[in-house]
């Protein structure tokens, strides 16, 4: 695993970015390669961690459901949300819990939150944790969202919990947007993170989730978090940090030391790749191809040191 990291770092920057775009790094022995937009496992050396029974536990990330959207890019976002839920329920092992990384609704309307909440009830899992997107906090700083999905958080929305030795931190970077700037976590939340992590041993696996990417994917479209570098200073001592984001409706990845960042597909509609269109608006794709742009993510923790095993599944496989 470490050898392959060094080989990646020796490549030309452009090649490295291309490689990272195509690969999701996984726990020891398994390389997850992207072929035709679908992540597939390739075994490296002896032993595969892909078998369902080998994971210590697994959880699922879904994102960007945009309940209430009804235009050309996807006239039936509730239908594709239910499809995604069907994929979760068909997993070989039920996830311990599901993380939703935001934009549950399209317009922060109470009826949209209610419809989404009803759909989530059909997920076969023991729990669900949420962080809002900017579509969930329009006009009320997330009051309607947190009322339904903010259980266990302080009221400001950020929260943390432990599951079988892994520490999970849900952050909020969709409040108090400043004109012309990217998103921010803010001093109060960052001070809370510092305290939250302070007494954890560096061997504790950490999972951080927030809606907007916690690295700069594409600044002209606001795809980044201005004060994320301060967050890194609290995270960098840990041996395994996985950062899960949404917002951009596509998979982008970055590796920085022991921190691996992933954005996710949504369950609603595609968006263009960074800079590939005049704006980041909903992308209409040819008929029959929508499913390949939407999907869920299963993450498995196995009891070895290092990154988590990540599997992205598109709805095209359904």
């Amino acid at each position, binding site marked *: 695993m470490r050898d392959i990291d060094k080989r990646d770092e020796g490549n030309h920057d452009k090649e490295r970015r291309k490689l990272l775009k195509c690969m999701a790094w996984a726990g020891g022995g398994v390389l997850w390669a992207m072929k035709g937009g679908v992540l597939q496992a390739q075994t490296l050396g002896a032993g595969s961690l892909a078998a369902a029974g080998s994971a210590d536990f697994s959880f699922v990330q879904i994102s960007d459901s945009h309940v209430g959207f009804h235009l050309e890019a996807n006239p039936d976002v509730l239908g594709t949300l239910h499809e995604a839920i069907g994929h979760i329920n068909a997993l070989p092992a039920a996830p311990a819990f599901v993380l939703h990384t935001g934009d549950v609704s399209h*317009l922060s309307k109470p009826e949209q939150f209610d419809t989404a909440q009803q759909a989530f009830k059909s997920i076969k899992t023991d729990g669900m944790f949420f962080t809002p997107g900017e579509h969930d906090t329009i*006009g009320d700083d997330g009051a309607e969202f947190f009322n339904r999905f903010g259980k266990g958080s302080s009221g400001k929305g950020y929260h943390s919990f432990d599951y079988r030795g892994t520490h999970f931190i849900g952050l909020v970077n969709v409040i108090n947007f400043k004109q012309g700037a990217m998103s921010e976590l803010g001093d109060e939340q960052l001070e809370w993170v510092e305290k939250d992590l302070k007494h954890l041993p560096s061997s504790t696996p950490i999972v951080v989730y927030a809606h907007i990417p916690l690295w700069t994917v594409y600044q002209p479209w606001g795809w980044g978090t201005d004060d994320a570098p301060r967050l890194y200073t609290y995270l960098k001592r840990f041996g395994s940090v996985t950062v899960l984001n949404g917002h951009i409706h596509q998979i982008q990845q970055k590796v920085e030391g022991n921190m691996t960042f992933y954005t996710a597909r949504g369950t609603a509609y595609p968006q263009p790749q960074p800079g590939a269109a005049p*704006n*980041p608006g909903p992308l209409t794709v040819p008929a029959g191809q929508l499913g390949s742009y939407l999907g869920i993510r299963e993450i498995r923790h196995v009891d070895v040191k290092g990154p988590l095993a990540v599997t992205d599944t598109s709805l095209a496989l359904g």
Partner: protein
Amino acid sequence: MRKNLFGYLFLAGLTVAALAAGTVKAADTPAPATVQANITSYKFDPGVITVAVGTTVTWTNDDDVPHTVTSTDKHFKSSGALDKGDSYSFTFTAPGTYPYYCTVHPFMTGKVIVQGTSGG
């Protein structure tokens, strides 16, 4: 003859009064102006709107995603979420420069410049 003279004077008086009333109406201010703006392709169009005091600006969202019209320094009430086809109007009654942005996509910015005097 006297009755006719009286009638003539009365009519003249009414005419003068009517003319005077007409003159007062002509001194009233014209109907307030309205200006249309579009929110399209993640931009406010036009980006800078220059208007006279008392003008109503109406923004209409043409995009497939919601936007807001939100005053940078809270100098006017925010629109809330505008879905595709929704409009928001605000009447500017005081001169000044009013920068605004979209809280969902804060890289979208615009400005209203209001000229003239208050209550004019």
